């Protein structure tokens, strides 16, 4: 499956609906494609282009800029060893050398069984936990050489809870329609309504229950935006 599957199409449309301009959903959709297939296939890029009303070349143009988006298959587990300055000072090079030996590949390579891709990456913001690494973007802190071997064993044995490459957050944002304020299209809006009142207390808290739906211009904005941004029906 290389184009987005039915469930992911639904999810893609939901993601697109959160942006005033559809193209803003491009990176999230590329992540979605990568979650589905482990990497971003050409077919998925073409499909995303259709969903956003842009060309496949534009999708590729964005996709190729970002390090996390892989256009070729990678291992089930991306092992990213940090070699930022703090990790460098505390043994990142030794750890990378050891990892290359343990996995039998050079940084940048993938093991023959397709299990592991090893990368030396720039600072991943765990500097006080040096040397650190990420497996599919899950942290492992203060990793000794022995820790690394244990980690690889567990991943090989399949006893780790880490999801296959492509899956990022396990929780997604969900916005119920009745709680949605609505997108704010760049060419559609007037002054924010809460600024436009004579009272001192512009928030207008009036003890109404939150669920109480009031007529709000923004609901219509939402619809206008969908039309404007070329979302495929």
């Amino acid at each position, binding site marked *: 499956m290389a184009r987005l599957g039915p469930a992911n199409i639904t999810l893609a449309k939901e993601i697109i609906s959160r942006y005033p301009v559809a193209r803003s959903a491009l990176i999230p959709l590329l992540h979605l494609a990568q979650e589905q297939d482990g990497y971003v296939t050409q077919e998925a890029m073409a499909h995303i282009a259709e969903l956003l009303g842009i060309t496949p070349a534009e999708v590729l143009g964005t996709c190729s800029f970002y390090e996390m988006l892989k256009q070729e298959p990678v291992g089930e587990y991306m092992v990213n060893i940090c070699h930022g*300055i703090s990790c460098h000072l505390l043994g990142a090079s030794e750890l990378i050398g050891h990892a290359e030996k343990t996995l039998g590949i050079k940084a940048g390579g993938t093991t023959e069984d397709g299990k592991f891709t090893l990368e030396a990456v*720039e*600072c991943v*913001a765990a500097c006080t936990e040096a040397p650190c690494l990420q497996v599919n973007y899950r942290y492992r802190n203060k990793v000794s050489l022995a820790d690394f071997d244990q980690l690889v064993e567990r991943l090989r044995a399949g006893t780790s809870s880490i999801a296959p490459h492509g899956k990022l957050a396990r929780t997604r944002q*969900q916005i119920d329609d009745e709680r949605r304020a609505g997108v704010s299209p760049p060419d559609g809006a007037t002054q924010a309504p809460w600024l436009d009142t004579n009272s001192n207390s512009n928030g*207008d808290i*009036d003890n109404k229950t939150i669920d109480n739906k009031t007529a709000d211009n923004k609901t219509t904005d939402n619809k206008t935006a969908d039309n404007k941004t070329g979302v495929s029906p």
Partner: protein
Amino acid sequence: MTTVAPAPQDPPQDIQPEDLQIVTSRFHNPQGHTLAAYIQSGGYSGLQRALEMAPAKVHDEVRAASLLGRGGAGFPAGVKWGFCPPQVWPRYLVVNGDESEPGTYKDRLLMERDPHQLIEGCMIACYALGLSQCFLYVRGEMAHAQERLAAALNEAYEAGYVGANVCGSKHFSVDITLHWGAGAYIVGEETALIESLEGNRGMPRLKPPFFPAAIGLYGKPTIVNNVETLSNLPWIIANGGEAFAAMGAESSTGTRVFAVSGHVVNPGVFEVPFGTTTFRDIIFSSRYGGGLRPDRSLKAFIPGGASAPWFYEEHLDLHLEKTAVDKAGSMLGSGAIVVMDDTTNIVAACHNLVRFFARESCGKCTPCREGTSWLEKILSRILAGQGRPQDLDLLLDVCDNISPGIKWPPRQTTICPLGPSAVSPIASALQRFRSEFEAYTP
């Protein structure tokens, strides 16, 4: 475990312990990221208070707080907020959660451990300035932060703190859209962040306009604020801007979160009063960094992330205060203090920092694209023992082309400061440790 905030039994000389925690107050609570724990500890009271005030008054409080941006440039947030042109709508809020400066490690914790605080800060900013949609841009590699924020947003929507009719108000309705990147340091530059959010390659925009507040997302006025900056807002509104300004130093108010890493006994993330703590305190005090490893001496330290010129022994008594650090020729930047002891190979450390900028250059401006990769290659060959005596001057010549005069603050021949940032480690290292480079070049 990351050490956050000092132990109460060891109070500092001149500061009350309760002053020390504004943004990290829930870090010790394993449930601090949940709505229940957040509300129990006073959460969302800042937003409720804001909604009882006129929006302009909320802005006034932030101005009164003299809150400096916590992302790197240290620009006053209240002033930046004032740059929105009147009567141009809509206006957007973009949260910069693309923390990637080497050594920097605070926004990730703020997003993971206290996501509601950030969400509340976003809603306060939107209310104050009439920003009608918020985009929360989280660095792609931070899966756990994305998860915690998604869960927190779902809770906050359900409870009525975000979305339609916030806290039951008639008119205040704002969505927060959680967005995430895909791996590119340059996206931390605010115009590149906007490009990325528009679905483009993350390349900085030509200036002027200097602030996206004038022309930003979709060409509309856009406030781009750092995660830590926004996380301060709930406290500021709940307690007043003056109370915030009373903490820290006159020109650097409130508290700041610093990550101390490298060759220290107790690396950690510490929230300290801004501007009154010294580098010596934060590196050597047992409450913070705990000093160097046994029998080691200090060689150098980076005061504010990879882009900052290095400091040495003689700078230890400087306060962690913007003006003082600027004057001494460096910057507090993103609050990243990286300590190097006498075991450090300076040439290798310098190469490490320069390689970072070479890899992360977006390629838009020639001096940076070519210059940083030249610098990296020259340093590589020096490290490999194949350097030539003239290479040291060549390094400085390339630096001079990226940042004419090699001065501080840097001049730049590029759209953004990434290229000039690569000059900092070289200028620092060559000035202080030239002999270590010469030892490599016959």
